[in-house]
């Protein structure tokens, strides 16, 4: 499938501190790409750069058009973003949050179309949130809330989603639930997903490819089974790692704490 995103020679510095150096990557439709790396390696900065929130060097091309030539509203109809800790107000209802995902399609005065409401209902059904639409955000669990934010991103009807650690604050069961859901969306709807993550094993299990960032540089990219090897991981994370390979299954990565 054609590349939805192409990045070449991407660089960014906060004052004198280089955070991203010569980053290149490609994201295709129907692909789940996991962005790995320790804290401070530049994962969140890279995601923000891809959305045009930072003044960067290099080129970022979304759907064949340079990022600088996209109008913000147009881009929001193609690319959705879920930050590490989405902002929320306790008094907002699940329905209110999902409806915000349609904001790039609203008319003047914030007028919504019939389509907007239909799509919100479809997303709510897909994420099993239909019965929670009137519930306030402070009345639902952390796992349900994360599904709501994912739903807001899906309501944008995007062709690509950039997710910054979508498993944050979720227990293992809900992390697996969210990743399964993403996998389904990628496979069945052809959405491209770029997901920053700290969980190497889960990333290996669900992503088509992984991309490892270290000190702002891409140090490895490819299928998890090829990329995740103990030498690289020790160099990047600074702790010895065991990578357990199973026949027919994704690798399992555990730190050596002995």
């Amino acid at each position, binding site marked *: 499938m054609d590349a939805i995103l192409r990045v070449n020679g991407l660089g960014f510095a906060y004052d004198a501190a280089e955070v991203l150096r010569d980053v290149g990557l490609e994201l295709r439709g129907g692909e789940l790409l996991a962005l790995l790396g320790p804290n401070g390696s530049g994962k969140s900065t890279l995601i923000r750069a891809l959305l045009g929130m930072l003044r960067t060097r290099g080129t970022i091309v979304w759907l064949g058009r340079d990022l600088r030539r996209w109008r913000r509203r147009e881009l929001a109809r193609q690319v959705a973003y879920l930050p590490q800790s989405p*902002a929320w*107000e306790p008094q907002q209802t699940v329905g209110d949050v999902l409806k*915000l995902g349609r904001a790039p399609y609203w008319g003047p005065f914030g007028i919504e179309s019939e389509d907007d409401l239909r799509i919100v209902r479809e997303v709510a059904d897909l994420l099993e949130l239909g019965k929670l639409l009137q519930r306030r955000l402070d009345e639902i669990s952390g796992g349900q809330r994360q599904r709501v934010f994912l739903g807001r991103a899906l309501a944008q009807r995007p062709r690509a989603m950039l997710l910054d650690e979508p498993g944050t604050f979720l227990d293992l069961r809900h992390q697996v639930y969210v990743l399964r859901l993403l996998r389904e969306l990628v496979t069945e709807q052809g959405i491209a997903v770029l997901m920053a993550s700290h969980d190497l094993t889960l990333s290996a299990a669900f992503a088509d490819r992984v991309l490892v960032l270290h000190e702002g540089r891409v140090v490895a990219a490819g299928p998890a089974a090829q990329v995740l090897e103990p030498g690289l991981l020790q160099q990047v994370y600074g702790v010895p790692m065991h990578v357990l390979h199973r026949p027919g299954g994704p690798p399992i990565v555990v730190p050596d704490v002995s």
Partner: protein
Amino acid sequence: MTRWSPTRAILTIALSLAAWLIVAVACTLVGSSGVIGWPTEQFIAIARRERVLLASLVGAALASAGVVYQAILRNPLADPYLLGASTGASLSAYLWQCSFTTTLLASATAQVLSQQTAAFVGACVSVAIVLVLASSRGRLEPITLLLVGVIVNAVNASVFLLVNSLSREMPGSGGPLAFLVGGINPNLTPQQFRAAAALVAAALVAMLYLSGQLNVAALGESESQSLGVHIQRLRWVALIIGSLVTAAAVSVSGPIGFIGLVCPHLGRLIVGGDTRRLLPVATAIGAALLCLADAATRLLAAQPSVGTALPVGVLTSMLGGPFFLLLLWRNRRRINLGGG
């Protein structure tokens, strides 16, 4: 889950207007002699109507600016005076009355301009200083804005006191006190009222137009950008519109406290936090509340124990403060003070 359709938007605005109209008509029945009833003399009816309309205009302006400030600054405690509009207006109006200023300016200019115009210009200049000082490479950050606003307010107030202590020859009526505690000033010319009304009306339309984006802006910078909102541009536009409206209000009434802070919260209790619904409702609440407060000052003036017309700003501050605390206390769960 309901759709924000054109019909719903018009219905919300119409219901808000109707609610305000009922209160406004009721308030025209309240006379300054303490008598409640339809005035028999036409000139009294006109005077009361003008007073009610002016109170409504100021209340609507402050409440709508409050909604916009709270949304764009992501701060539920933001009020329209935060960026220096009120102290800028007070200082400017005060300087306007100083004899050395009037001498300094040509008398011809003085005839064209009025104290209200001076207050409007002062409010705008003060807000412009805050916006320029708080911006960095064209970006406005809410926290920096709040800090710079507090400092500019403090500097304005201290210059006010300095001028006051150096020059003790201030005129009495409509003098400095009128711009320390606001009141409904019935001595405006029709032109002044019309100018303020036109500005507030145009700004309200612009605010309603932006209300969808303001809704998204409450999410914060990166999320609102990813939902298609040009957040830095929206901040500039919204703050300039909100400040112009505040300047218009403060220039005709002086700083009237708490309307801009409390009305958005009252509106939220009725229709929730969606800015598209909240803006018309809170605006109507502001207009109605200030009418009621002004009518209350007329009733109080008729009481022998009071005997004088209190500036409405005294009443709104005295009642608004405790009322706001009560509101917070009773709705600690519903009113979020975390700002996100």
